[in-house]
């Protein structure tokens, strides 16, 4: 399973590295979202600093949709689903590999967006440790749930419109928890619930969807 996961993750990341769709399109899109938020809210830095954590994670969610769609799109071309099934790779390995590839892309994106938040919104990062932990936990959850929904909607003609409707309500707790957990680190404001609890919630979310993906990805592959 782990070997297959590495193979699939390596393949997806190589495709991304060569096509540069993520770097040339998804990352600029996410940065653009940050700029649009600034237009929508206020040139006043105070508002932006207060909302920075939420805006950061909304931008990540929107970019996740694109990354997931792209990841699923790689496997939904002519005969590729059949080839994937005939390849003899462990479905759990395929799932973990694809999720890992998405997660790596998201981490890169989050680092760029983090710099963007600091530069554009004038945020002072105070707790780098908690921020990094939040990023890791949230990213794993987003990648796992996104990969599952990506393959679920992947073969459908209406996937562009259906995927956001399916995925966004599911990742709503990730948005809530990640925003609250990173709020303290980004804005220096005190929070009611300790970041540790939110991290626990993010970890639980990631664990649930990883476990489900490992068990059910094979069933989903039969479908597409």
């Amino acid at each position, binding site marked *: 399973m782990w070997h297959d996961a590495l193979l699939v993750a390596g393949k997806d990341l190589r495709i991304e590295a060569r096509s540069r769709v993520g770097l040339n399109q998804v990352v600029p899109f996410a940065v653009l979202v940050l700029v649009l938020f600034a237009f929508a809210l206020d040139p006043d830095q105070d508002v932006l600093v207060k909302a920075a954590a939420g805006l950061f994670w909304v931008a990540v969610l929107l970019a996740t949709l694109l990354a997931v769609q792209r990841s699923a799109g790689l496997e939904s071309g002519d005969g590729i689903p059949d080839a994937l099934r005939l390849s003899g790779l462990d479905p759990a390995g395929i799932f973990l590999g694809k999720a890992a590839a998405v997660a790596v892309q998201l981490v890169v994106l989050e680092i760029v967006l983090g710099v963007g938040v600091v530069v554009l919104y004038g945020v002072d990062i105070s707790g780098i440790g908690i921020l990094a932990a939040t990023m890791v936990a949230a990213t794993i959850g987003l990648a796992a749930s996104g990969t599952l929904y990506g393959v679920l909607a992947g073969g459908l003609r209406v996937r562009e419109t259906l995927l956001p409707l399916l995925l966004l309500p599911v990742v709503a707790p990730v948005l809530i928890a990640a925003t609250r957990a990173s709020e303290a680190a980004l804005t220096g404001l005190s929070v009611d619930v300790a970041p540790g609890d939110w991290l626990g*919630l993010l970890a639980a979310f990631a664990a649930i969807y990883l476990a489900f993906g490992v068990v059910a990805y094979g069933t989903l592959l039969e479908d597409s």
Partner: protein
Amino acid sequence: MTAPVQPVRTSTASPLSFALGVAALVSLGATVALGLALPPSVEQQDYSRLVAIHPGLAWASYVAFGITALGSLLWLWPRTRHERWDLLAGASAEVGAVFTALTLATGSIWGRAVWGVWWVWDARLTLSALMLALLLGYLALRRVPGDPETVARRSAVAGILASLVVPVNHFAVEWWNTLHQGRSALQLTPSKSVDGRFLFAMTIGFLAMTLVYAWLTLHRVRMARLEQGAAGKDLDQAIAARRAETQPATRPATPVPSGGVPSPGGTTLRSTTLGSTS
């Protein structure tokens, strides 16, 4: 056009569902009567009467969500896999979406009167709104056409996926809104603040909404089964009519080609019928 091969079932009623329907109607009538007879409370005035229906609606929406998850699970489990579980999950989600929307609507009306706003980011409200979004997504996915087996499989997985997030959502919105309203009169637990009459009306409301949910879902399942049958039947009839055109003198139109294999739904399997034509 030829006559149908076998008598088509046009009603979704049965003695059991009729009895269920009567029970649902009677308990719903009782809820309305009891609810309207409730005295207006000091703080909430007439709006306190919403207690007769709102908690029942919310309860039924949770039941619907649970049944959808259960139906999905039973379909996915190879030993219990049967078309009926898929239909049940779909029907329950449809009825559940209606109940969830009604829960939000009645809650909003109550909130406007008592809190002064249509919406507050209260934990339970937010959770209900998210559940409605999950149900709508699930139903949108179900509506994407495809081979019945494929549709059933992806619906079942989506049903499970959506239900997995509900507990996480619950904690997220509870913690997120640490200032949320304490458990108010809209709660099943009897307390000094709740008059016995309110509690009684509310309990009947729970019963009524559960029965209405069960009745609607039962009929929706039967309806879905008829729809499936009708989808195949139209094609069969069209093929039979086309054949009748080519052989007008030798043979009268035969509605079902001899090669046709009857499916459990009482219709002819499409692929076999088409194969025998070519």
